[in-house]
């Protein structure tokens, strides 16, 4: 009986250790990559060249979807943080999904979303100036949207640093969940403040959304947004499964060391 179990276990782990991992996830990756190729074709070949800005405008199809995806990611951090923190007297229906019981999955979701969101925000902050230099003549202006994005980036850098510098895992989870909630609410106030601050000083007011978007361009923008959402979904899936595996490895190691101690005592 035990022998059969062992062979089953061996087969199962062999399936999991293949380089492409889980088959459904591989299909999803292929899907995301196909979309990406089509998206690149649409952006660089199919989309009409903008009459005023020329080819530089094409970066807009990557920049804006990434910004939207990053905001979505940070909203996900906020939601997962709320679900992770324990609540006294949680309603009975939540028990089925183990909400508000410090279920580690919410911590994993929050940290994965923060990591991916930070990568996307970094790319947004890089592609923005590349577009701005030929159009505005300067790399950076302290426009409300730009400043808020920079502060957002700093908040989530702090979030990941807090996780890295925490003294243990459960502390990292709780502290970062608190920051995930406080930080997201703060961003709303930051935007309000920076918006007024900008009007106070009447800076250069040119934004991406000020120019007329033709219907073909809009189609490409929406397609590109969909592509980046699929990419985000794939990355989330991958990161979550990696982090779950890490937990399994740690637990197994703990069990092994416990067993070793027990054997040594004998």
């Amino acid at each position, binding site marked *: 009986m035990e022998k059969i179990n062992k062979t089953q276990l061996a087969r199962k782990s062999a399936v999991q250790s293949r380089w492409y991992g889980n088959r459904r996830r591989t299909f999803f990756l292929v899907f995301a990559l196909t979309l990406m190729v089509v998206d690149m074709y649409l952006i660089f070949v199919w989309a009409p060249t903008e009459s005023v800005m020329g080819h530089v405008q094409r970066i807009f199809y990557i920049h804006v979807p990434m910004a939207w995806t990053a905001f979505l990611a940070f909203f996900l951090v906020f939601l997962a943080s709320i679900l992770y923190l324990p609540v006294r007297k949680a309603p009975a229906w939540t028990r089925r999904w183990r909400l508000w019981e410090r279920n580690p999955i919410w911590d994993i979701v929050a940290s994965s979303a923060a990591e991916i969101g930070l990568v996307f925000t970094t790319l947004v902050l890089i592609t923005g100036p590349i577009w701005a230099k030929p159009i505005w003549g300067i790399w950076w202006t302290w426009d409300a949207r730009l400043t808020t994005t920079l502060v957002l980036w700093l908040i989530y850098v*702090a979030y990941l*640093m807090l996780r890295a510098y*925490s003294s243990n895992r459960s502390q990292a989870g709780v502290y970062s969940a608190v920051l995930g909630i406080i930080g997201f609410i703060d961003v709303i106030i*930051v935007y309000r403040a920076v918006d007024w601050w900008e*009007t106070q000083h009447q800076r250069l007011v040119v934004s991406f959304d000020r120019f007329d978007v033709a219907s073909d361009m809009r189609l490409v923008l929406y397609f590109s947004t969909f592509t980046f959402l699929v990419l985000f979904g794939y990355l989330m899936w991958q990161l979550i499964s990696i982090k779950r595996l890490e937990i399994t490895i740690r637990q197994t190691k703990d069990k092994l060391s416990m067993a070793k101690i027990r054997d040594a005592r004998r």
Partner: protein
Amino acid sequence: MKTFLLCIMLIAWKDIRLEFRSREVVISSLVFAVLVMVLFNFALNVTPDTVDIFAPGVLWVSFVFAGVLAMSRSFAVEKDKGTLDALLLCPVSRDVLFLGKMLALFVFMIVVELLLLPVFAVLFDFSAFSGTLISTIVLATLGFATLGAIFSSMAVNTRSREIMLPILFFPLVAPVIIGAVERTNGVIGTDTGIVGSGRWLQLIAVFDAVFLVLCPWAFGIVMEE
């Protein structure tokens, strides 16, 4: 309600008495703020013509930098001496503990700022004692103390607490700094003000209200850990 306020006062009073004996926080923050201001003077090359433009920014940056010093001491002292556990054993709720620590921090920061204000007024040539300026200082410091207390309690348990506190604190407190600088601009600077100064006070007040609700709750969770 009465005992609630009394407990808050008692916890704050404990910190203030400790400060009377050691005089650690107030003196070091004061000296540090003056140093920051002197360095800004070199960096910005302040002349009588430009003093109005730079004064509000220099004022608030040195206040915030001095405040971070006070914040880092707030929970570090409790942690180093092991009194944090004793404090947690007090038969009061965590909200009371938080508000007490926050009140003490607020008092230290206000004292430092009120001592600095005349010095600034002389060096940067403005009249210090206007109601607008004082109300801005009180409300903005309340915001600093609230966020400062919660991040101090978090940073003190991490591996590199001196680094973590400013990294957590500065980005989140950005709206208060913007609001305070802009409102001070209305008093000191030559700014005409498209956005009225009352609006900035509202912004800071909203910030204070939001975090005065959120932070005591968060403190309870942080201390459970």
